[in-house]
């Protein structure tokens, strides 16, 4: 992301090990580290396999005057950072959430007690080894994190129709969502809109009822693993996208699904009921 340039106060950023095989684009976590690194010096992104990372970082630190080394605070990161700090005899600050510079002095912020307390430290020697967990994003995006999402679109027909979907979501332990259009119509709350822009979801199971599958909706569910779609229009684009497509009226299909689920969850066999 950052091309070679004359370096003032270089800050090494170790690319997140979770980076997928796509080596040209850093992950979100890595990019956040780069942004923070930019505040305290010149970010330099380095990428090494886990096993070689510690040695490689130490090699660079011995040759170059670094301001800091930033590493994501995950399992591998903890290990690598500990290694590097011991070998370089340099300070280590762990689980840092924020970085800044004050009169040339590096300032780190750590959070404890779920973010209610802040610990601010001044770091006077370089390079500092820092493991970072950038501030967690606002938790409003439950939908974006849900494992199961059930959503409806214009084809649901009414706000009442959404109650069927809500029951299904409830049975499956998932979240209820809607398309942009259904949100506009007020059938479901605006924040439940799965759209681009809007919530981007990545559930293991996505059930779409009465969703035709506009481009912006399909863009937002691209990362769903299994897609089940119910729509009365056989030409609806969502059916081409779905792993299981059902052409039919969801007001008939959904009750049947709910019945089936109810039977499987609590079969009438007495031995499964706890005495």
């Amino acid at each position, binding site marked *: 992301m950052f091309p070679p340039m004359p370096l003032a106060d270089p800050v090494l950023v170790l690319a997140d090990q979770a980076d997928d095989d796509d080596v040209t684009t850093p992950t979100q976590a890595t990019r956040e580290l780069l942004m923070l690194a930019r505040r305290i010096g010149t970010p330099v992104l380095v990428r090494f396999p886990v096993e070689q990372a510690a040695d490689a970082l130490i090699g660079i630190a011995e040759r170059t005057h670094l301001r800091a080394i930033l590493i994501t605070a995950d399992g591998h990161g903890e290990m690598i950072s500990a290694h590097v700090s011991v070998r370089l005899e340099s300070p280590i600050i762990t689980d840092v959430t924020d970085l800044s510079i004050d009169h040339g002095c590096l300032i780190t912020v750590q959070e404890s007690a779920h973010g209610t307390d802040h610990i601010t430290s001044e770091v006077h020697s370089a390079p500092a080894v820092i493991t970072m967990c950038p501030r967690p994003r606002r938790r409003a995006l439950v939908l974006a994190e849900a494992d199961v999402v059930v959503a409806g679109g214009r084809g649901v027909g009414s706000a009442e129709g959404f109650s069927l979907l809500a029951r299904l979501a409830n049975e499956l332990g998932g979240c209820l969502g809607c398309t942009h259009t259904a949100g506009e119509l007020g059938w479901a709350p605006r924040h439940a809109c799965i759209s681009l822009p809007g919530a981007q979801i990545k559930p293991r199971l996505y059930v779409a009822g009465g969703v035709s599958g506009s481009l912006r909706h399909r*863009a937002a569910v691209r990362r769903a693993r299994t897609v089940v779609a119910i729509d009365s229009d056989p030409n609806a684009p969502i059916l081409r996208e779905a792993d299981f497509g059902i052409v039919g009226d969801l007001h008939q299909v959904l009750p049947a699904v709910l019945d089936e689920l109810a039977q499987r969850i609590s079969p009438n066999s007495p031995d499964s009921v706890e005495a």
Partner: protein
Amino acid sequence: MLVRLIIGLAMTAVAFGLAARRVLTLYRIGRLGQPVEPGRTRDVVPRAKAVLIEVFGQRKLLKWTGAGAAHFAVFWGFVILGATIVEGYGALFQRNFHIPLIGTDTWLGFLEDLFIVAVLCGLAAFAAIRLRQSPSREGRSSRFSGSHLGAAWLVLFMIFNVMWTLLLYRGAQINTGYFPYKHGAFASEIAAKILHPLGHTANDVLETVGILGSLGVVLAFLVLVVNSKHLHIFLAPFNIAFSRRPRALGALLPIYSEGKEVDFEDPGEDDKIGRGAIEDFTWKGLLDFATCTECGRCQSQCPAWNTEKPLSPKLLIMSLRDHALAKAPYLLADSDEARAALPEAVRAEGERPLVGPIGEGGVIDPDVLWSCVTCGACVEQCPVDIEHVDHIVDMRRYQVMIESEFPHEAQGMLRNLERKGDPWGRGNKARLEWTQGLPFEVRVFGEGGEETLPADVEYLFWVGCAGSLDDNAKKTSRSVAELLHEAGVEFMILGSGETCTGDAARRLGQELLFQELAKQNVETLNEVGARKIVVTCAHCFNTLSNEYPQFGGNYEVVHHTELLAKLVAEGELRPVNDLDVAVTYHDPCYLGRHNRVFSPPREILGAIPGVRLTEMPRNKERSFCCGAGGARMWMEETIGTRINETRTDEALGTEPDLVTAACPYCIVMLTDGVNTRKQEGKAPEDVRVTDVSEVLLRSIRKNPEPPTPE
């Protein structure tokens, strides 16, 4: 006589001293800005012409007839009545002074009096406008809402004082016999008749009092002007001379730091990316802020302001100006000690972030910054050529590239552009889907093994992301392809070789990503040897034709409406089927205002039998945005009412069967709007939103099919 001379000169010395001190301060503040990009000071002749047309011809002001005419009168009044100031000063030294050579000519006396009357009429008009459009009556919808009203009335009052004191001393001069003009000065003669009965002594006194009063008022006005928003009297000619020509629309400028373009492959250490503080603006930016007259023409047109969002281009510029003035002592202090010795308030001003929540001391609230659709309605209207859109995008660039602070929902679009090359993340394999079901084969570059465009291919058809992927826009692509095929125009598409042009990334402020995409596309286009390109998307059109030259991509780019209009005019396409529909046409900002393509879509519609075109109240240069520009398509609109619904209501007001546009973004937004209104029962069920090309196709098809239900 001696007393009158001494008083006159003393007043002058004091006023000029005060004004000079202020001007010096303003000059030093202006010097704080960065150097401008190189083009600003080149092309002296067209710039001089622009000053002539905009300043002396008052072209933009006269677009609003009433207010424009009043301003014309007052402006020219100031120019012509400069002569009376010379006469006034002359009379201090020599009681019967007249301007040499022409100073007793009837025409000059007449002209002076004519403009005294004209200015008074102008003032009456201004006062009427201010009373009728007063914010206390009209609230937010008044264009003066948020402007300094007291200062404006004071300025009008001062001009009024200049006029009546002029008439007073000129009338008295006639009675005392020292007036330079025997004939022509009709208004002064009326004043003389009124003053005559007072007697000779009284007129003697009134002459002196009048001259001193008139000069005193002019001098006080001078001091007022340099201390108020009325500074535009002196700055507007410079601001217009150094503005982007022909207008600050169309292309955005690349990022400049210290007057040099930032090279992202090898950025300098101290390069400033965008505007993160007031002193990061160029001196032209600071000049823009100082020139704003708070007239509010921009505000009256702004789609964000008109849908109850906090952004008004006028208030944005005013905030930046006020902040620049308040922070100036902090910036001008030459040492840390001097800075520490400044008053608390000034130091606090120095610490304010340029962009940040107002509650946390920010100068520009993020909600203001991110409300802009970059439609350019403000730039189009501004009589002093302020470049609002450029400033907004420059501030966004800093927020995105340095602070990483921007509406998080836009992240999805950026990620998709980075990884998949289109905003929806469908990937380049999906780019050929739209060609399915066409009755002929669309030629795709490279499929025949060719390395450059074959000689028989006239146009490269740049389909664009929406045109390849969005369901409505795919219909447009198909219509255009069918029409070109019908007209026998040979064209080719790049298929999976296309990538997003990067418009949304650039307008969001993600310049780095935009440049990556742009360089990639320019490389592709140069490799295939593209010369003539036709596009359906107004945003691609703008980027390809106006912005790619910045990266060495020079092509003859036409919008499909231009090409189709030409084909219809040349008889290559003959619309024959009578459609019998009522149609309205929405001007896409990036086609119309930014690129001046107003008539071709209308020519197409006009050529179709049975099309009854009704214009919306806001059309052409004053068209109202659909709400998708400036990367707003990729952000949620949670403040105020929806821009697209506002525009939809305007379209529905023309009672159309078809709402047409010529840009896929507009069509998405208007379709949403129409669907919402249908659901609310406020729009007839059979209204449809469609591209102009689809209407043309329906009139050309041999057997017109009934429109397929959606």
